[in-house]
């Protein structure tokens, strides 16, 4: 539907973009060449790898889902709510991004660990405790990744034309319908971006996870942890091989995503 005349190719812009692309390309190339292609299959299909991959996917997807469920309302409040201390709340939201993941993990332990502010009473009451459980991994990843969704969604909500929501309401659309049929489609690009960022960040999360949820193979060991282990036992090529799986997974998703939101 874009009937604009094709913009004349802007060399400066293209150059900078190309440089940026190359900047990302060479490291990938490095990984690909550095990978032990001979043992690739065996490395990837080893039980521990597959376990780790499975846990990674489950955890990253669940935490993305949580980020949506809780993060969107938060973004909504930040974009539309009228209350004092909004700046502070926004600041709070972005903290997990600036905390070095390991410290994030420590903070989580202090809050939700067995001896934590919330964790201790919880444990006493229910006997439940998050660390060293899959739930713990999800919590850690949500903590680190959710802010990316909140910030992006908020920016989307800010820049949309709210009069279209008025029009929808004047046509008798309930808040929910307005949201579903008007707001959502209009902020879709921002949401997609947010989901991608969140998911990717969760998938690559290491420090907070190992600190808060530990590194139990088959239970809390995600890909990044598995990679860390093979790397710290000086099996760098294995680490690379495993990383390439992550790369592959995300590549697939990215390209699929295009199809999807290319349509709007």
């Amino acid at each position: 539907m874009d009937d604009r005349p094709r913009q004349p190719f802007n060399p400066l812009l293209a150059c900078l973009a190309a440089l940026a692309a190359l900047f990302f390309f060479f490291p990938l190339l490095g990984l690909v060449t550095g990978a032990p292609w001979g043992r690739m299959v065996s490395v990837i299909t080893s039980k521990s790898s597959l376990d780790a991959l499975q846990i990674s996917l489950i955890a990253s997807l669940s935490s993305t889902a949580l980020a949506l469920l809780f993060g969107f309302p938060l973004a909504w409040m930040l974009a539309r709510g009228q209350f004092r201390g909004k700046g502070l709340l926004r600041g709070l939201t972005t903290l997990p991004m600036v905390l070095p993941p390991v410290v994030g993990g420590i903070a989580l332990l202090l809050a939700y660990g067995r001896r934590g502010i919330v964790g201790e009473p919880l444990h006493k009451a229910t006997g439940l405790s998050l660390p060293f459980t899959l739930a713990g991994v999800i919590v850690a990843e949500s903590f680190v990744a959710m802010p990316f969704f909140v910030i992006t969604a908020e920016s989307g909500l800010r820049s949309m034309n709210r009069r279209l929501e008025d029009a929808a309401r004047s046509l008798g659309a309930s808040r929910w319908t307005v949201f579903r049929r008007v707001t959502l489609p209009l902020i879709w690009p921002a949401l997609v971006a947010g989901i991608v960022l969140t998911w990717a960040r969760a998938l690559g999360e290491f420090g907070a996870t190992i600190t808060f949820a530990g590194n139990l193979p088959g239970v809390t060991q995600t890909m990044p942890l598995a990679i860390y282990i093979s790397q710290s036992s000086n099996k760098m090529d294995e680490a690379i091989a495993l990383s390439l799986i992550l790369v592959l997974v995300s590549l697939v998703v990215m390209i699929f995503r295009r199809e999807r939101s290319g349509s709007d």
Partner: protein
Amino acid sequence: MLEADIQLRLGKFSLDAAFSAASGEVVALLGPNGSGKSTILRALTGLLPLAGGRVVLDGTVLDDPAQRTRVAPEKRPIALMFQDYLLFPHLSVLENVAFGLRARGTDKKAARQKAAEALAQVGLEDQGAKKPGSMSGGQQQRVAMARALVTDPRLLLLDEPLAALDVSTKTDVRRLLRATLRQSHAANILVTHDLLDAVALGDRMIVIENGGIVQTGTPAEVTARPRSRYVADLTGVNLLRGTARGTAVDLDGGGQLTSADPVTGPVFAVIAPAEVAVHRQRPDGTAGNLWRGTVSEVDLMGDRVRVRVDGTPTITAEVPPSAVDDLKLDDGGELWASVSPAAITVYPP
């Protein structure tokens, strides 16, 4: 039946207008740009909060700040056609029109069915699949109208619904509106700048100027006795203010006129441009009003020409195109204007 008393402020602009519209009635809302027409419609729909007053539709209170009552826009049986359409860019034209029905619970199939009919009514049967962004202005306006009409509301608000339509379509759509507005037992408010629309569609006219109602009545009443420059311009007559002593009227702007029927006190005096004669030389032996002025404007209005003569009073005359050459009006210069007392309508404000 709508009873509205709307009081609110928007930045520096403050609005205070009380009026009502019976079921099945069409109220034409006219007024200069920025007088508050669209604001009234937004307020009625509940998209703007009232500061004071109340809105009652068919006995149910929709808005009453004093009582802290306010029905949410989506809960009001009202449809508003926005001045700038506000079509949903991401939905097809058909989906746009079906939106209101779907929102109010009609099932998909029926909604699309009715939407298609509505589109056909406004002459866009074959365009349902398009996105609004790829339609012409006039087409978009008709989509907006269909979207509002199809919901058949209890209160229908149309904000300049015909402004972007070509003549042929305008006549058809105007006819369509006449039919539907009559049939519907809804109250209808039609914002327009076109007296023709007001007369053709409106049972009653409300004229609003910077936030307040200045005149109401049937189109005939309002146009017969304009009470503001704006209304006078609507009908294209000369409106003068003054004080009458019998048949003599001292004009506020200076100058004096003699009218046929005697009145006393402050008055409006209305003179139709066609009744004003202009001459290059002082016409001898003309009874009644005669005064001197200079040509300031010559406007070609279709098959007539309007000449503005600056003087005391300044007045606009309507002459046949031929006169432009005969009297060399384009050269400007001095001119005599004359009006017979009988041609002057005088009435108290």
